[in-house]
């Protein structure tokens, strides 16, 4: 089995394996029923899963589809959250407005910053985005109007509105998922993938790499920003250490890769599994859960180097799978 054949395994086209996508859509439909449990805990757990999934979709678009590995998407999550907080402190109490403003601001910010930053390639792009994220966090932490490190308190969440944020987050995630699906299948998606595969060859085919990279990053920013915009009022309080947390930066990347990079199902599957497993481990191993969490990631990477979506495309049972693993060994 050669590298080329391996690449085909589990790929199933630009949107990834269709069965995996169908399963994910089904799961999304099920998640709509979560608030019916009237269990705040379950709701918060899944709201956080959805939040991470939306951020993972954002990252997947620029990192997975366009091949520009961003280490700074948390900036958009944070900016989105602050958009909500600023509106809330000015008396606006409307999640839709929060999300719209966050998406607009994030897209604009991504476009402005993207112009110089997206000229950089590969690792240098990655670091530049990390720089942008840390700098944005630092600047907000030093701005008194935004509460500095003290943060901003939004209005108190009451029981009646509690599920509202769940549904809002669900919609943001569904939007990111379907957005990814339709973008991937559209001309835009093919431009992104062409840039990922070979920027020079893409240019010769008439694709303006600069333009489409910025478009990809702006859409990516909108997804993360929308998640942030719902997170802020749901959490009721934000500060730079919450909204620009390292985890919020790394987790979506980890989830996407674990689920299946450059697929529509991957980010969701990754988020569900990672956040779900983390929650369970935390419950059963109050102290050692992070240890097991680390071990779990290592094992999954070693057993499924191309992500969980790969499972859906594997044919020929355990033996074929083991055989295909050997190909990744140096």
């Amino acid at each position, binding site marked *: 089995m050669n590298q080329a054949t391996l690449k085909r395994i589990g790929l199933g086209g630009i949107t990834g394996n269709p069965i995996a996508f169908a399963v994910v859509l089904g799961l999304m439909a099920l998640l709509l029923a979560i608030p019916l449990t009237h269990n705040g805990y379950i709701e918060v757990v899944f709201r956080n899963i959805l939040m991470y999934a939306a951020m993972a979709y954002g990252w997947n678009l620029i990192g997975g589809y366009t091949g520009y590995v961003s280490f700074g998407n948390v900036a958009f999550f944070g900016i989105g959250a602050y958009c909500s907080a600023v509106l809330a402190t000015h008396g606006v109490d409307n999640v839709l407005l929060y999300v719209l403003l966050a998406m607009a601001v994030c897209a604009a910010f991504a476009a402005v910053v993207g112009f110089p930053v997206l000229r950089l390639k590969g*690792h240098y792009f990655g670091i*530049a985005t990390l720089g942008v994220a*840390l*700098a944005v966090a630092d600047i907000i932490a030093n701005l008194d109007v935004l509460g500095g490190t003290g943060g901003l308190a939004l209005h108190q969440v009451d029981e009646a509105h509690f599920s509202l944020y769940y549904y809002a987050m669900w919609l943001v995630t569904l939007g990111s998922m379907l957005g990814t699906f339709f973008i991937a299948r559209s001309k835009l998606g093919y431009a992104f993938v062409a840039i990922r595969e070979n920027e020079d060859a893409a240019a010769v085919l008439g694709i303006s790499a600069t333009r489409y990279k910025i478009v990809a990053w702006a859409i990516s920013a909108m997804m993360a920003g929308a998640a942030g915009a719902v997170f802020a009022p749901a959490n009721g309080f934000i500060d730079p250490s919450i909204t620009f947390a390292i985890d919020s930066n790394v987790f979506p*990347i980890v989830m996407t890769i674990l689920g299946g990079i450059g697929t529509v199902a991957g980010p969701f599957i990754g988020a569900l599994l990672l956040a779900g497993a983390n929650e369970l481990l935390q419950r059963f191993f109050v102290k050692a859960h992070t240890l097991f*969490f*680390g071990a779990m990631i290592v094992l999954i990477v070693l057993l499924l*180097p*191309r992500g969980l979506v790969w499972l859906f495309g594997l044919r020929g049972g355990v033996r074929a799978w083991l055989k295909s693993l050997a190909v*990744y060994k140096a």
Partner: protein
Amino acid sequence: MHLIAQDLVNGILAGGILAVVALGFSLVWGIMNIINLAHGAFIMLGAYTTYQLFTAFHVDPFLSLPVSFVLLFALGYLIQRFIMNWVARAPVLTTFLLTFGLALLIVNIALNVWTGDTRGVTTAYSGANFTLGDVTVPWTKLFTLVAALAITGVMHLWLTRSKTGRAIRATSMDIGAAQLSGVRVTEIYAIVFGLGAGLAGVAGTLISLSYALNPTMGDLFLIKAFVVCVLGGLGSVQGALVGGLVYGIVEAFATQIDVTIGGQHISGSGLQDAIALVVLLIVLIVRPTGIMGKATA
């Protein structure tokens, strides 16, 4: 005037450590294309090695440098050989994910071994200093800088002169060609990863002299390593040094900025990360491969 000189000295002294912090990270990234998120954990292990030797056997921290290098080299070598190698041909980000998991594992094992207590390595000469005109220079940090320079120099010589060093550089330029000329890439990779870990261990030892230890200390240095190695130029020994010094000096001078604009008090010190990062962005935009990086066509 005296503050400017003092800041320059502070910056250079801090930059020397950052250079070593970034060196191993930069080599692994530049040569193997692996973003090693476990680098911070390796730094922490190096610091604890020094701590253990110091508290149990009163070994001077500087004397423990070779020990932490060797121990961490061995650890890195084994990890690459028996874990990372398993997915060596998978896409780049797969190994990135793997190092994320490894970092979690190592840090949490350390939490169980050493607990979350904060510890320090305080030697008899810790804090001793001398003055040059108005400028105060702490001996420990000066020695640290000297050690950092020496390590960078040795690394540079080894990479350019030794047979293995050349094989490493050949591999980083063209794996296929290197393989054809008889380089065992698996072995080279294990050595490079070991080297990266060993240098992280050395950095940890040097850090333990000025910074208190706890199992999660590595993360802060990991982020700095990211910035420094790109600032200087990925995979370049001199780049790490230049990047470290630039970063240290920028941070030192950023501290003294202090202005008030429209009622908003801006402390450069509070913004020192942001300032350093803006410098990074400017450098990258002017020179997309870092200060010492090779310009590519």
